[in-house]
């Protein structure tokens, strides 16, 4: 036991100190009761949580999304900063949504990773993130003109025989018009009213022909966003509007949810928008020139509402009403204010874990880990007696170092991460098994205890090194391809193996040296 031993001891003390330092915030944070957390000053709590080991989305519940920006509609000039703008806008939306520590970052050239830990309302988040929120104001065609457009479309559909005879109750000269219960009356102004049950059929008909070539110039058909009812009939309106937008959402300075914007529905929620200077000017011009016409407020190619312009509006205030729930109005205000995404996004990967499953995973993962550790400990004690204790000390330190390294690297503990630790428990003893079996062999040849230990460590080392390096290689490759929770598995496995080389080889040797150092031991409990 010379200088070598001293250095080992110093390294152990330093590593233990670092581990305790790295783990202190974690232990403190998770041992606080919710009430105690409330009591802490906000800044201190944020700092504590930031330094504590994070639980992965699969353990605390939450949402992992990969979005793809659909750049097909963009011009070459728009492409370069479309991603940055999309990320900025998503960040604005998510910040207002109130998620603690969201992650929003680019992945590759057209993908965005969004992680919302602890989120409970999946549908709301999808709605908030997924919508483009492209707001446009388009004039609805006057009733007479809309009527002519629908008739023209009807004739075209009849000619092409677009209607599927087997599929429809109405086979005749007027496939489209017969589906409108009030035709030729138009209860909603410049648009056709269809029964909700027929909407799918109408959409199918429209997609069977090239609507663009049938419609007159600067004319577009846009469905209403929500259902309307008229004389007891529930249905949806297909608006006939200009193709050209009078203005878009870039003129909005501020948007808030308001109750009672619509006099006919005093309890309904809507969104009230304040326009900026340019928006106000535009809106004033549009309203002045089109008094008595209907202005469709089009959100992502659906008409949210189409109010009548009664007079010129100079104030720069506009509002969207419709059948929104309170929550929907709130979220619409958020997305309108955050701005429209530069291009539509598609959700190409989603992983949402509800809080119950997360709690289950923590419980089951912990149970499996405890059982596994218990079994391995018992096995090692039965097999190696007192030397088994040495291996168990090494194992305990190994676990401590894994947790400390994860916490120190601001890492995340996931369920596969726990699995990685459990497997590390099983595999980490290998190094000690190799050494102990070797020591036994040496003892059998009649060597003394001290020299058997010495030879055991020396001879087992190459096998330990080579076998650990190969496991490092395969877990490294896994870390490289994996994302999310599985990456957590690779991380814990990797750290576990590194820690294992230290604990199972150096630390156990130290213990043997201490135990056998001061006296001549005749027998070794192994």
């Amino acid at each position, binding site marked *: 036991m010379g200088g070598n031993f001293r250095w080992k001891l110093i390294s152990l003390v330093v590593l233990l100190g670092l581990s305790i330092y790295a783990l202190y915030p974690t232990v403190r944070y998770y041992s606080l009761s919710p009430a105690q957390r409330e009591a802490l000053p906000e800044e201190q709590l944020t700092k504590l949580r930031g330094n504590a080991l994070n639980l992965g989305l*699969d353990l605390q519940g939450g949402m992992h999304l990969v979005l793809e920006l659909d750049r097909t509609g963009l011009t070459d000039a728009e492409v370069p900063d479309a991603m940055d703008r999309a990320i900025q806008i998503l960040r604005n939306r998510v910040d207002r949504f109130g998620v603690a520590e969201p992650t929003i970052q680019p992945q590759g050239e057209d993908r965005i990773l969004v992680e919302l830990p602890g989120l409970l309302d999946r549908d709301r988040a999808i709605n908030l993130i997924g919508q483009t929120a492209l707001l446009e104001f388009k004039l609805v065609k006057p009733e007479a003109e809309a009527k002519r457009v629908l008739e023209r479309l009807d004739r075209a559909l009849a000619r092409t025989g677009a209607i599927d005879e087997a599929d429809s109750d109405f086979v005749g000269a007027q496939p489209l018009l017969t589906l409108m219960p009030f035709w030729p009356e138009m209860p909603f102004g410049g648009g056709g009213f269809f029964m909700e049950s027929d909407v799918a059929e109408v959409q199918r008909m429209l997609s069977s022909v090239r609507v663009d070539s049938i419609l007159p110039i600067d004319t577009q058909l846009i469905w209403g966003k929500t259902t309307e009812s008229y004389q007891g009939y529930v249905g949806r309106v297909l608006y006939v509007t200009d193709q050209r937008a009078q203005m878009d959402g870039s003129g909005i300075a501020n948007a808030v949810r308001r109750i009672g914007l619509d006099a006919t529905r005093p309890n309904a929620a809507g969104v009230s928008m304040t326009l900026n200077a340019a928006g106000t000017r535009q809106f004033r011009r549009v309203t002045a020139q089109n008094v008595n016409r209907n202005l469709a407020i089009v959100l992502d190619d659906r008409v949210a509402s189409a109010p009548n312009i009664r007079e010129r509006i100079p104030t720069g205030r506009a509002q969207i009403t419709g059948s929104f729930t309170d929550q929907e109005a709130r979220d619409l205000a958020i997305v309108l204010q955050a701005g429209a995404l530069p291009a539509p996004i598609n959700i190409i990967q989603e992983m949402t874990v509800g809080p*119950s499953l997360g709690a289950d995973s923590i419980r089951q993962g912990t149970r499996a880990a405890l*059982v596994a550790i218990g079994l391995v400990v018992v096995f090692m004690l039965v097999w190696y007696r007192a030397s088994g204790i040495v291996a168990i000390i090494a194992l305990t330190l190994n676990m401590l170092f894994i947790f400390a390294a994860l916490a120190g690297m601001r890492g995340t503990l996931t369920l596969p991460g726990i699995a990685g630790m459990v497997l590390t428990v099983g595999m980490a003893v290998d190094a000690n*098994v190799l050494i102990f079996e070797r020591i036994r062999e040496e003892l059998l040849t009649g060597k003394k205890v001290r020299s058997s230990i010495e030879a055991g460590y020396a001879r087992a080392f190459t096998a330990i090194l080579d076998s650990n390096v190969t496991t490092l290689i395969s877990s490294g490759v896994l870390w490289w391809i994996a994302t999310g929770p599985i990456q957590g598995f690779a991380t814990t496995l990797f750290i576990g193996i590194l820690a294992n080389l230290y604990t199972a080889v150096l630390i156990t040797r130290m213990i043997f040296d201490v135990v056998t150092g001061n006296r001549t031991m005749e027998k070794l409990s192994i």
Partner: protein
Amino acid sequence: MFTIFADTHINFMSKRRLFYGVSIAAILIGVVSIIAHGGLRMGIDFAGGRLIELRLSERLSVQEVRSLAGQAGFPTAEIQAVRESNDVLIRIPLDPADETQGVSVSDRLRTAITSQHPGLTAELLREESIGAKIGGEIARQAFWAILISLGLLLIYIGFRFEPRFALGAVIAVAHDVFFILAYFSIFNKEITMPVVAALLTVAGYSINDTIVVFDRVREQLVRLRREPFERVLDISINQTLSRTIITGTTTLLASLSLAIWGGEVIHDFAVAMSVGIIVGTYSSIFVATALALELRHAAEAKAKA
């Protein structure tokens, strides 16, 4: 001293042809199974699709849930009951139109279930959806990861041992990986990302096991220079046998604990690990070491000729 395998003298190498037969038979069964199933059954991670797990307050039969899913507009839904719980897993092909109708897929399913069974609650435990394109990318990546890691292992072992040892070891690992895939095919289980993680971990573990034997061979080749190669291999395997069994046991205890008590989410991963540990232990003796012997024989035959 607690020992079971001390001082064994089993002639492993003389029985190697028997075990070649076993391995080849297992591989053939796997190939037949994979062909019969029309390829490996890919989970949504790779094939794309939607997976929804619901927790029901009362147990409903799989048929019942299937017909309710049909009523909700998902006639092709695959339903699976989760063991020891009322949870159900519902797999539906991904249709972008599903989410644009205003009501989410999981809500439509939950409504269909609760409206037919008043008083029953259906809680969303998890929902995963993956587009076919990104799924294909992930599958390709996983495939390359396995090949690259086999390649790196080949290089490392070739560098640390003789090349023919490396070849034997890597063929043994490929054997293990294929065996797990075959096991999943025979029991019609899905290959998912966690299963691929298990494949890579098994690759590391199995190589690990092989290396311990090879390390002893490397040492004994120097000591027992006059002994035939085959005997050196047998002696080395016997000397490391108790370590092989002990480490296999502790690792298997850990992975079986995960499979039995770790819950649904990591069950398949843990099963793949457990199968892999057993096969990996077998293959390090009967495939890796035996192949090293065959390669040596082939080299000797060539040298004579």
